[in-house]
């Protein structure tokens, strides 16, 4: 497998797609800081009356990650799909490399590439943000969040590679990877919205103009508030789906980190095993 890894890494670093994704990741990271900076400068008076957390770069540090995950999907689809479309995967099989080794070497290379994209995006935002707006988050917190995002990236990449290696067409594979990412993000955003819904609508009180009577309405129950088993399911989905984990890490507290890491391990092992089994049974042309 070392031979395959060596060959794959050389191919990665020479790859035009990798270089473009790297550049776009950096631009995305920095790109979200600049509008915030312009806004802070333009409304300096308003921000002066607000606490520092509103004017520093903290809220923008991880926004780019939500776009970079789509770059990751596209990259995995194209990088793995090229081997099918150019037929070069045959060169490895013909000379006796095992399918499992080929699959795992691809997983390692794609994980490394995707982690690089994320780190470049976050560090570009962090660097520019610190320079222009300053940050409230400490190094430790930023690095912990970055590390956690990288762990989620591993499971996310395993899922993307499963799709990409199961489909022999580069273009179809890339589209499926993007759709998977979009689907996961949509599900996570929907679940987040449902979980964030208030259990009760606030009560209200008003004085009747004619009678002068004070009319009070008690808080009313939100019928779409998920409770019991339904809420457990939603919480599980939110913690389990990699995009849900990313949302939690980027925009909220880090949630239940241990549980999320356990889920990542399950996704990684499950999707990689499934991918290897499918790839082993695949009739290559």
């Amino acid at each position: 497998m070392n031979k395959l890894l060596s060959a794959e890494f050389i191919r990665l670093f020479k790859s035009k797609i990798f270089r473009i994704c790297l550049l776009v990741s950096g631009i995305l990271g920095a790109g979200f800081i600049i509008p915030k900076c312009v806004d802070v400068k333009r409304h300096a008076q308003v921000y002066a009356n607000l606490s520092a957390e509103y004017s520093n770069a903290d809220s923008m540090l991880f926004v780019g990650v939500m776009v970079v995950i789509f770059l990751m999907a596209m990259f995995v689809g194209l990088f793995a799909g090229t081997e099918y479309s150019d037929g070069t995967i045959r060169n490895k099989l013909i000379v006796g490399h095992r399918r499992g080794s080929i699959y795992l070497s691809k997983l390692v290379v794609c994980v490394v590439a995707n982690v690089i994209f994320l780190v470049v995006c976050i560090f570009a935002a962090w660097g520019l943000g610190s320079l222009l707006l300053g940050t409230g988050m400490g190094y430790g917190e930023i690095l912990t969040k970055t590390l956690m995002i990288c762990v989620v990236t591993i499971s996310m990449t395993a899922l993307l590679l499963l799709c990409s290696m199961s489909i022999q067409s580069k273009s179809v594979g890339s589209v499926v990877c993007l759709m998977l990412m979009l689907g996961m993000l949509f599900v996570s955003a929907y679940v987040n919205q449902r979980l964030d819904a208030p259990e009760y609508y606030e009560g209200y009180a008003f004085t009747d103009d004619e009678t002068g009577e004070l009319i009070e309405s008690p808080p009313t129950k939100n019928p779409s508030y998920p409770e019991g088993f339904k809420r457990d399911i939603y919480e599980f989905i939110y913690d389990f789906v990699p995009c849900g984990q990313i949302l939690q890490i980027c925009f909220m507290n880090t949630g239940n980190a241990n549980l999320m890491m356990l889920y990542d391990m399950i996704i990684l092992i499950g999707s990689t095993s499934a991918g290897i089994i499918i790839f082993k049974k695949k009739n290559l042309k």
Partner: protein
Amino acid sequence: MEYCLETNGLCKRYRGFKALDGLSMHVPKGAIYGFIGKNGAGKTTLIRLICGLQEPTGGSYTLYGEKNADKGIFAVRRRMGAVVETPSIYLDMTAEENIVQQYRILGIPSMDGISELLALVGLAHTGNKKAKNFSLGMRQRLGIAIALCGSPDFLVLDEPVNGLDPQGIVEMRELILKLNREKQITVLISSHILDELSKLATCYGFIDRGRLVKEISASELEAECRKCKRVTVSDTKPLCRVMDEMDIEYSIISDTEADIYSQISVTKLAMALAEENCEIISMSERGDSLEKYYINLVGGDDNE
């Protein structure tokens, strides 16, 4: 005889369609094995199986003594190189980068020999030109160069002259002969361009509907495809009389044509026919071509 590849009742079925139906073949070491069959006969399927791209649904094959189900098959594959259908090359890399990449895949530490390999296939001067800008012939040659990277003992080429121009075909033929003669590489070539194969192969395997119809050496085939002279005359009646008198073996094709199998003196025959007022219009060397032999073997129209 030692074989580098033997298949035993090899079967491959795709959802109700039998691509290979109990195919048994034997590729002798050092041979150029011409694998002949029409489109859809199962040539490429067999090549995919022996290259490990697909698994057989029945039967087995042995590569240098290792069965396909044995663990040792992976190590033995290292002795193989193949170009299956289209050449497997990275289009965004140069010829040299493609070779370097294959060296890495094979774990060859030294990059020596890359320029010699490129020179061997006639791609020494491609420089920084990306493979995507190569002609079909250049891509085919690069595919062969990649297949030759690990100094294989067994080279499998699937339709190597498909789409090549006449000069490319000649160059490809010379390259294959050179590899076989100078490096003692056993070559399995699948093709349906029979005329081209007949200039290369030392033995043949004829495949039809997933079955091997016949395996034959080039010398055996030559004996079967007997050489003759086709003569066109004004009338075959006097020709018959003359040839019977001269004790010549022949067969009549039509009122004006006949095939002569014996070695004859053309002058004597012409003079004897002139005495009978029979004119020789034309005479040409003929032999049952590989093409004709193949059609006879697989049944011609029945198979169309």
